[in-house]
């Protein structure tokens, strides 16, 4: 711990005391912020983990269907079937403020509400497995959007928690002890000065009395 490089004056002392008070307050606030962020982060991580497992399983499922479809259909036919989609999805991006971390909120908007619009091909020349693949992907898609949202939120919150944690630690272990030590140093220095003034005054008084009245 290092004492700050300041002049030991009363003005510095009162300024430092004010700084110490606000540092302590800031420390308490940041600590609360860190705890609350951490609590929400843990909830999100739990959901994120569950969602990811679900999405990964569903995509693996769709890939299996796709592999079968690819084996019974010619590649060109498969690509042609999916080349011109009827359905179109756009994403509306909102914003949510979680403990001053701005996390995006995604809302998918489909061109049409018809659930069958995902099949962009006639059923005559395509394998039924292609339907299975497209169907399982479309079922999991809302969860995929939620996964994107929550994964982004987790990343942003992890950043913020790290920053807050560093700030809390810096205040707790460096700034506040430094202020305390400097305040102690100035108080000691000032009282030392005061004692020295008192003693010299007493001495002078003695000398003056002795000179004028021959007082012993």
């Amino acid at each position, binding site marked *: 711990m290092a004492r700050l490089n300041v002049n030991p004056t009363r003005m510095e002392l009162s300024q430092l005391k004010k700084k110490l008070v606000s540092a302590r307050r800031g420390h308490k606030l940041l600590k609360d912020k860190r705890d609350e962020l*951490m609590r929400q*982060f843990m909830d999100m*991580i739990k959901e*994120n*983990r569950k969602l*990811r497992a679900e*999405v*990964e399983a569903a*995509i*693996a499922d*769709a*890939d299996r269907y*796709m*592999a079968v479809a*690819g084996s019974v259909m010619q590649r060109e036919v*498969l*690509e042609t079937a*999916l*080349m011109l*989609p*009827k*359905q*179109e*999805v*756009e*994403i*509306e*991006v909102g914003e949510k403020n979680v403990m001053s971390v*701005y*996390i*995006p909120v*995604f809302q*998918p*908007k*489909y*061109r049409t509400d018809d659930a069958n619009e*995902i*099949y*962009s091909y006639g059923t005559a020349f395509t394998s039924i497995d292609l339907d299975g*693949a*497209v169907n399982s*992907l*479309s079922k999991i*898609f809302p969860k*995929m*959007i939620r*996964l*994107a*949202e929550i*994964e*982004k939120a*987790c*990343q*942003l*919150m*992890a*950043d913020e*928690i*790290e920053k807050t*944690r560093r700030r809390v630690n810096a205040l707790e272990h460096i700034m506040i002890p430094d202020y305390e030590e400097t305040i102690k140093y100035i108080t000691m220095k000032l009282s030392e000065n005061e004692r020295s003034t008192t003693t010299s005054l007493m001495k002078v008084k003695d000398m003056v009395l002795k000179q004028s009245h021959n007082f012993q």
Partner: protein
Amino acid sequence: MYKAAVIGDSAGVLGFAALGLSVFCETDGEKIKKLITRLASGDFAVIYITEPAAALAEDTISKYRSSRLPAIVLIPAVEGNTGDGMRSLHEAVEKAVGSDILN
């Protein structure tokens, strides 16, 4: 209004075309990096990328990790799940908590 994109090898991502997502079939690392940068500066809010494709453009993806948009999400490819997607989750926990407490 934003759009969603899928990047990966053709077999793994073709199915998403039917849902109305923009599909980009790319297997070359440099091209993937350029593509991500282009999509991110465009109006794409969500980019799904297969794990093998993401492994080729790791630095570009990590660049967008702390920005608000786009959200880049790893999905398993046809070859199977490499666990990279879960790993990024563990990384986030490690960053926030200081140690990986999920295991």
